[in-house]
């Protein structure tokens, strides 16, 4: 093989090398953090100073500006983990299990926030903090699945072996995502049906949709920023493990 016939390193190949991945994506962290900060500032300003009380919900509609984005992320983060699980099992991509591991605690936190804000919205609106209906119960199950995945990662010393077990568990748990999404259509629930992501368009007025979408992007950009930072940390953590093992064997450089 000569230099002319050597295959060129594609972006996919570069992303599959942990060190290259860190080098390529590290410059993104600061711009992403700045965009996230601006989106939160604008979203909060709109949410509190420019958005009127809603016809039926009154001022409690403002809880929607933190509830809907966290509820969206609780499912989006799991979808990210499910795609990463496929990356681990099917393509054996070295960064796939790093992505899976980094996302799990973030997903658990966003799910807990969605449940917390939902119950605070439910008390003045429905008269109860909690109801065992399809949407709320399946979201609680999602939180337990996230916590199970975090615990599973910690149960293994061999992270490559853990990755395969967690990937299978993650894909099995993915069955819960369509249940959460369609629970409000399949069963008669206290939780209202979808009012933003609908085939016939959102049913909310523009002055409520604007802060909702700004906060939606703010939370999504925050997740992307934290996910990248957590993936960099995981790459370094694995490097530490390798170096410590070498040092323990007495052949450290």
């Amino acid at each position, binding site marked *: 093989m000569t230099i002319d016939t050597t295959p060129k390193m594609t972006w996919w190949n570069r992303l599959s*090398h*942990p*060190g*290259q991945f*860190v*080098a390529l994506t*590290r410059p993104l962290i600061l711009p992403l953090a700045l965009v996230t900060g601006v989106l939160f500032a604008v979203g909060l300003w709109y949410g*509190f*100073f420019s958005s009127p*009380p809603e016809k039926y919900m*009154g*001022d*409690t509609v*403002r*809880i929607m500006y*933190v*509830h809907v984005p*966290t509820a969206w992320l609780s499912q989006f983060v799991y979808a990210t983990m499910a795609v990463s699980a496929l990356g681990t099992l099917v393509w054996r991509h*070295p960064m796939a299990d790093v992505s899976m591991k980094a996302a799990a605690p*973030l997903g658990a*936190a966003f799910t*807990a*926030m969605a449940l*917390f*804000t939902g119950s*605070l*919205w439910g*008390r*003045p609106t429905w008269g109860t903090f909690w109801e065992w209906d399809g949407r709320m119960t399946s979201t609680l199950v999602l939180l337990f699945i996230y916590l199970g995945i975090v615990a599973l990662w910690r149960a293994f010393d061999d992270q490559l072996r853990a990755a395969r077990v967690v990937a299978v568990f993650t894909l099995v748990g993915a069955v819960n995502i369509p249940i959460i999404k369609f629970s409000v259509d399949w069963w008669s629930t206290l939780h209202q049906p979808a009012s933003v992501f609908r085939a016939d368009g959102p049913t909310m007025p523009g002055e409520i949709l604007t802060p909702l979408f700004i906060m939606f992007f703010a939370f999504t950009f*925050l997740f992307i920023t*934290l996910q990248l*930072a*957590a993936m*960099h*940390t995981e*790459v*370094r*953590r*694995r*490097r*530490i493990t*390798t*170096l*410590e093992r070498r*040092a323990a064997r007495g052949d*450290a*450089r």
Partner: protein
Amino acid sequence: MIALGAHAEFIIAAYVGVFAGLAGLIGWTVFAARQTRRRLEELGDGQRQGSSAQ
């Protein structure tokens, strides 16, 4: 600050809870990143962080 109506305590509690959670997530992410960076430097791998392999 605008008036938040009869259910102000629920709205305030929701925002305080969420932003406390976000502060915790960001703090934990930054702390873990600094801790691993420091440990790599102790192991003499400080300069190779950007190009370190597994």
